[in-house]
């Protein structure tokens, strides 16, 4: 499954780039994140609790950061193990560009899901993954622009 979208963030490009790679920001933006630790150099570890259709899952995820072009682009490679619920893995390529209103963030997410949650069929999984990705970047925009998102 592949998803692509963009956000205009009212903040300077460099500030956006710096912020996206802090555990605090990741925790604030990943829906259902209980704990995020680590650093861009060593990678991040995250615990995320999510409900996909009827299946509740606690994912233990590891995220590594590769192909870093400071201020411009990076790629996140993540893998989450959800125990009885299955697993999720994927990559997110994030590209930043200057924009009259601040900075344009373009993201391309490729995700693979397996186990019980995959069985629910793409009609549930695709929607769920889109929602997760959108929530992440909308929260991120909100955090950067200092807007409280409900």
């Amino acid at each position, binding site marked *: 499954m592949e998803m692509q979208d963009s956000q205009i963030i009212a903040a300077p490009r460099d500030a956006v780039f710096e912020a996206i790679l802090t555990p605090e920001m990741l925790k604030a933006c990943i829906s259902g994140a209980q704990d995020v630790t680590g650093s861009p150099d060593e990678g991040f570890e995250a615990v995320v609790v999510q409900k996909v259709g009827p299946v509740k899952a606690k994912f233990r995820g590891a995220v590594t950061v590769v192909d870093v072009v400071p201020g411009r682009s990076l790629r996140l490679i993540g893998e989450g193990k959800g125990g*009885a619920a299955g697993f999720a893995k994927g990559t997110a390529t994030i590209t930043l560009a200057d924009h009259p209103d601040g900075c344009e963030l373009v993201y391309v997410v490729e995700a693979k899901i397996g186990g019980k949650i*995959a069985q629910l069929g793409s009609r549930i999984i695709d929607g769920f993954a889109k929602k997760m990705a959108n929530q992440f970047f909308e929260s991120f925009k909100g955090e950067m622009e200092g807007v409280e998102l409900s």
Partner: protein
Amino acid sequence: MLLKPCARWPMNKLVSKAVGAPMPRESARLLVEGRGSYVDDIALPGMLHIAFVRAPFAHGRILCIETADALQMPGVVAAIDGKELAEICAPFDTNPPGVPGHASAPQPPLAIEESCFQGETVVAVVAESRAAAEDAAELVFVDWEELPAACSIAEAQSDSAAAVHSSFDNNLSLHHRFGAEDVSDAFENAAHVVEESFAFGRQTGVTLEPRGIIAHWDPRAEELEVWQSHQVPWQMREVYAAQLGLSPQSIRVVAPDVGGAFGLKLHAYADELAAVAVSKRLGRPIKYIVDRLESFTSDAHAREAKATCRMAVDSEGHILGIDAVVDSGFGAYAMHPRGSFGEAMQAAQMIGAPYKVGAFRAEVRGWRQNKAPSGAYRGVGQPIACAITEDMIDLAARAVGIDPAEMRRINYRSTLDEGTRATQSGLVIEELSLDACLAKLMEAMDYKTLRAGQAALRENGIYRGIGFASFVELTGVGAGLYGPLGLPLAANESCRLTLQPDGSLTCATSVTDQGQGTLSALGQLIAGEFDIAPNMVRMISGDTGRTPYGGGAWASRGMALGGEAARRACVRMRDGLFEVAAGVLQCEPSALAFDNGEIIGLKGPSGLTLAEMGALCHYRPYDIPTGQVPPMTIEESFLPLNLPYITSNGVHAVHLEVDSELGTVELLDYWVVDDCGTVVNPLLVDEQLRGGIVQGIGAALYEECVYSEDGQFTNGTLADYVVPMAGEMPAIHVDHITTPTRASGLGAKGVGEAGTVGAPGAVRTAINDALSPLAARVAKQPFTTRRILEAVMAAENLE
């Protein structure tokens, strides 16, 4: 010894008044009123529940299992992994000695170190309730290393394929050939040679009631009691005894009401074995009910196959030769205990079965895949063979330029060739009645009018198709097949008939009933032998503690084998009672008959009713003039001695319309003329045919287990795995030709799978007939709107 095809046995006279009577099925009332008792309705004191943690990868290595968090949860009793269960339970070893070269890895009840399909059980979480067990299972953490997997048949057979199981370096599980090594002569001299490739999607049975089990190991008595939603309780007794190292006599297996089985409840599953082993481990009753999501990934799958077939015909349309290769997808392990090869073998061996085919060669290969194991599903391989055969017949008829019905008629086989013991592919058949079936079918469907209408509508761009499927079906498969394979399976069916003191009868039968109504028909048959009401016969079934040893339900055997056993028991019971009555009435036993439950002598009604006979024999034996009390319990077991199975046959036809722009199929009408020999209850027989046809239509148009490239089951819910619904089904017109089998006195052949065997072939040939003006063909089942549109567009692009 084989029956000589020319030997004429006397036609069976009507066995009793009850045979052939459309009696309503009283025992169904209980089920439709929701008063059935299924495994999940049973609760034992102190019973615990299992939720399984299943493998998320098609192929993976277990690095570690953490259960500490799960064990902290309220109500959780244990979290057991494969290593722990291995201490008390052996893995399934499913390599029948009679199948040369068969290779399957051992399958433990819970995966140890390596798992080979998505959905394989890894950890059993045991708790006071299912909900508590499921909540705790979510907290079990398994660290996995994903291993390379081979999922599709093409992938499994490629040279660079990943090994499905680490104990093998390739994925070939079976390689066999039926017929001649070389059939090239037949093809060289043929007027026409047609060739086609076929693909069949993976399916599963989708029973209304999912699999389920309660296992109770009693450590005090050292006895195991099992209640299981299953077709073959006696087989399961032997399986659990072997896996747990117990005496079979210490095990009782009960199959209570079972809500549909279709073959998938014929197998022994790792899940259920784990439940039994956990009960032994903990010494407490354990319940495990498979939920719908689990059913999809862990029930036996079936049908996944691809094939190529060539057929040679002469200028008049006579078949000169068949040359086929079938590749079958076995899944990760061979299904225990019967293996996964049955479908592959029958898919190859049954190609061309209704016809005189000249030279015959069919090669079959079975491939391990990182997918759920495949096993028996209503029809076992025969729907594949039938679809291949019938599509080839249509292609050949088109090449020769004759009508497809005529092509069938001139090639039908009616008996074995003189001086032979089997067909070229090794099938042992009795007399077939395909000619008569086809004639009756064509009359019922008004074939000529349908063809004329089809031609007229084509002028207007309306594409209707007429499809035929002739089939020969192996029913009542017995020891002649399983014995030589080295499978320890009782394939006889038995009846233990008891006359109670009040004159009612009890029939304990090895035959089991999963909703077919077999027990009602058996009761009807028995009642008819004494001319009493069916409710005077109490049926006992599905309990190794209460029924005689025997098979159960598979391969359409209930009436063909179980009915004959019951009939024989009745005859012996009656003969014994007639001996007594003859003494009382001072006449020859041969002068006596039963009428309305009373013995009729030379002077008419004798007053010796069944109740009087029961009282006489049980309470006043001294009043019997001969002093000889006949046995009040008679046990009979039946298996056709001279035949490995009983062949039934029939012809299906379907009329449908394909929308060439939408790719949709509308089923307009469906006909079947079936010959299952003696029909005991036509209502039950006709519903078996209709139900089977609906399942076959599901196979043809809707049902497919869709796996992703990396072996994830992606449509494992009833929202995405589409089963046929009543609204889409056509009127199904059923008729019969009756050729009683000579293998039994009753003359009944099996009928349970006849619908499923023929329907996919009939729908396939009809769609291809409809698409023929567009020069489009479908080859991959199911024929979804997408596949039909792709075929139409591919044909357009060729123009």
